[in-house]
């Protein structure tokens, strides 16, 4: 087996690997992970992933990934959204079968056909979305499918005793809630219930998928205590996260994934956040930032003290202020789930704001319906094209009408002018290079990139004055990415205000004139992309305020400042 350094090594990785080597050599009798030497180290590794490759169509989600989890340790798996972390763990948990490579548990090769096989082999997974039955009690959830019975009825007393013994072994406080319905518990407790459920079923290896994403800081601390208890009792944990400080705090080793491949594996106490941040987001920038030719103009969109709640009533946007000017791309970076979706929905009119102001061209639009906002000139490239952006069963002609039902010339009073819409669809197909170039093709038969180009075309051709683009290149091939980026830049140069939300850091860096980093519903900072390193952005995405960079990049930045930055290539 080749060591992890095979991928695209830069200084940081070499550094990481050398520190890893050092750490390894300090261990007694240790081989480098991935260098399988047969059964001799079987006892040492609870889990070994050996050259795992998983493809979905043309997309390689995991590319020859090696990873080994030592018994009784926490092994962190970090990487950006889409780096392949969850896919890799789904392979381990039996949800996917790898196209290549081998999974070994306690040194024995295994082939899991389903999660049940994994559970039987002692692998448990704590999903981001808990596998709990909300209206049932904690006890009932833990024993589900493995209920002890006495004379036909579930023996709750015996179940309770077993759970209490697990709780006392690991110092869990869940025994207080045994008769409480799961839905009445906070997510922190629910998570512990999930962990107990896995332990009750005899899990030796626990995979925790972004377990801290839903927790408050106090709950995170409690979770880390639990994790330490588990490893002290000899269980092995895989901890998926993108929050670097957490990985460093709780993990023994850290494996960094990027674009489906391992960048490196390092000892937690021999690395730094900065190093991990570089490993995680650092890459050859695919596209050069281009000097811009126009200066931003008047403020077009002004958002003040905006607060938005999600469907469950939780506040996801917590007092955000910003201004987007004509001819400017305002980028919002951040790990998904930090309030970006709710922010976009509030601006585009799909979700009512709890409080705060949304002004467009000086008019308050917070009270306008979605349709009224479309008519005012707000275009929206949605993050979920299958759900919102297109109707899969419609052909492209009928999809060209989506959002244009009241826009001339496509609408004529109550009637739709299908002739004009058909011409429009053909124009989009032609202009935006949509393949196949057939306006009567069903939208769902198109590839993701072509669907996205069609949506972008439809929204841009409405001649908007504000364009909200949310993850505009998600799941899109390289060629289409470049095409869509060029169109966004053209819009900007034509004087359109662009609000760009993306979890891809390079995309935000490439297109934005100013970048806000969103974390837990707030903007950590608003920076000038040329004045900040990816390392700093990575830290900010993990919620850490960066002291340097972008100090004057607040909403009242001089237009000239950005222009100068654009001209002076870094």
């Amino acid at each position: 087996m080749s060591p992890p350094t095979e991928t695209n090594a830069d200084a940081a990785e070499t550094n990481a690997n050398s520190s890893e080597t050092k750490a390894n050599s300090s261990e007694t009798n240790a081989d480098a992970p991935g260098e399988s030497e047969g059964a001799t180290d079987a006892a040492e590794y609870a889990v070994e992933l050996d050259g795992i490759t998983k493809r979905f169509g043309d997309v390689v989600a995991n590319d020859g990934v090696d990873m080994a989890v030592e018994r009784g340790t926490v092994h962190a798996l970090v990487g950006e959204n889409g780096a392949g972390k969850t896919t890799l763990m789904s392979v381990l948990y039996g949800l996917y079968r790898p196209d290549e490579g081998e999974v070994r548990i306690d040194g024995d090769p295994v082939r899991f056909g389903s999660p049940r096989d994994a559970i039987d082999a002692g692998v448990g997974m704590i999903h981001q979305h808990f596998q709990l039955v909300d209206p049932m009690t904690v006890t009932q959830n833990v024993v589900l499918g493995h209920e002890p019975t006495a004379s036909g009825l579930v023996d709750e007393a015996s179940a309770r005793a077993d759970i209490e013994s697990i709780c006392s072994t690991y110092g869990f406080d869940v025994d207080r809630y045994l008769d409480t319905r799961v839905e009445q518990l906070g997510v922190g407790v629910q998570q512990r219930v999930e962990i107990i459920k896995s332990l009750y079923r005899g899990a030796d290896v626990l995979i925790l998928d972004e377990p801290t994403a839903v927790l408050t800081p106090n709950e995170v601390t409690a979770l880390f205590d639990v994790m330490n208890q588990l490893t002290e009792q000899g269980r092995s944990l895989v901890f998926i996260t993108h929050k670097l400080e957490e990985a460093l705090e709780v993990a023994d080793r850290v494996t960094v994934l990027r674009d489906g491949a391992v960048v490196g594996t390092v000892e937690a106490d021999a690395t730094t956040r900065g190093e991990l941040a570089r490993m995680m987001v650092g890459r050859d920038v695919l596209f050069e930032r281009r000097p811009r030719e126009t200066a931003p103009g008047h403020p077009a969109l002004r958002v003040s003290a905006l607060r938005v709640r999600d469907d469950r009533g939780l506040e996801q946007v917590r007092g955000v202020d910003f201004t987007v000017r004509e001819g400017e791309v305002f980028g919002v970076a951040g790990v998904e789930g930090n309030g970006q979706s709710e922010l976009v929905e509030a601006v585009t009119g799909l979700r009512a704001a709890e409080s705060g102001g949304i002004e467009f061209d000086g008019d308050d639009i917070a009270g306008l319906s979605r349709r009224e906002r479309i008519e005012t000139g707000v275009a929206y490239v949605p993050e979920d094209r299958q759900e919102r952006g297109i109707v899969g069963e419609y052909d492209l002609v009928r999809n060209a009408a989506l959002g244009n039902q009241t826009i001339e010339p496509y609408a004529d009073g109550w009637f739709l002018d299908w002739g004009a819409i058909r011409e429009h669809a053909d124009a989009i197909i032609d202009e935006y290079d949509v393949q196949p170039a057939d306006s009567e093709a069903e939208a769902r038969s198109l590839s993701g990139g072509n669907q996205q180009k069609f949506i972008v075309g439809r929204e841009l051709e409405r001649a908007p004055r504000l364009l909200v683009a949310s993850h505009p290149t998600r799941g899109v091939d390289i060629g289409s990415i470049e095409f869509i980026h060029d169109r966004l830049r053209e819009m900007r140069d034509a004087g359109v205000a662009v609000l760009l939300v993306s979890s891809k850091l390079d995309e935000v860096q490439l297109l934005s004139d100013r970048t806000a980093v969103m974390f837990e519903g707030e903007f950590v900072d608003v920076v000038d992309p040329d004045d900040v390193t990816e390392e700093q952005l990575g830290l900010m995405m993990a919620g850490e305020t960066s002291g340097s960079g972008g100090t004057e990049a607040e909403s009242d930045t001089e237009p000239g400042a950005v222009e100068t930055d654009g001209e002076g290539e870094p």
Partner: protein
Amino acid sequence: MSGTAGGARAALDRAADRMVDATAVERFVIAVASTALALAFGAVVVAVSGYDAVEFMSALLYGAVGNLQNVAFTLRQSTMLVLAGVAVAVAFRAGVFNIGVQGQFVVGGFATTLTILFLAPHLPRGTVGGVLLMLFGTVAAVIAGGAYAAVPGVMKAYADANEVITTIMLNFIANGVVFYLIDGSLRPPGTSSPNTPSFPDYVGLPPFAFGSSSFSVIGLGVALLAVAVVYVVVARTGFGYDLVTSGYQESAAAYSGVDPKRMVVATMTFSGMIAGVCGALFAIMILGYYTDPATFPRFGFDAIAVSLLAANNPLGVVPAGLLFGGLDAGGQYIGFTLDVPAELIDGIVGIVVLFVATPELFRIAGRFGGLGGGRE
């Protein structure tokens, strides 16, 4: 972790999605196969029950189209089924299960009756007065039917009350209240049956070629006109686009500027207005007075089968309505002549619906039989 009351709505939406998840050819094949299988099943039941299946089938055919009178009866039933079927199709198309077309039809017809009986003394007698009465009566039916359908629409949109159940309850309530009002207030003194007075004899549609007292080509024309209007609305207007898009994919509709709650109410109202026209035609063309709605044919329910068979396409409702009109006429003929109970036809309608609800059955059958019923 999701759930709450939105779950039921989502379930209904998914159900609606699956209904329309079939290609046009597939739908046609399923429709034809469902009907053929259901009729075959009916024949088997007839045979098992000790009747003559061949005689049954030929009598069914004769009852439907055997002579001019039977054709007139078939067309009369078809007229009603086409109108009620379009009312159902509009709602189903938008993913709203309006099972209350029967009640909306009853209320619409009652509104027509009230209007005609109330206005008749105030308008000139004769053709002009008759036409005016029929026009006002129809307008009243449209308003009443729409309003009666809007109630479950509002309950669904703003209180998340399952519209299948509310509309069925409103069917019962419409029957009971209309009966109560006729029996208590409109029955002429000295009569025993719960009938309103008859309409003036200048109110009614001319029979033209068929010479039937309860069928007029004008009635059929009204039904076809309604189909055309619905077709144009669905296919050509922004409202129709909103409606159909809501049925396919509510989130995409919301993205395009549709308010989902208002759309539910608007859809129900639109559907109920068409059901109201059906009621007006029933009162004017068929009855000429009004009576206990419990004795009415269940056009509103058979219309569900008509609409499903037509894959909720307004144009497809015409052939499906003709087919079911023929079945209905044939079934009644059988009831009179062969003493095979006419209710059998209701059962056959149920089987058609059951088959249409399970396209997967035909896909699998097609795959095994190599008939190309599979997709792709």
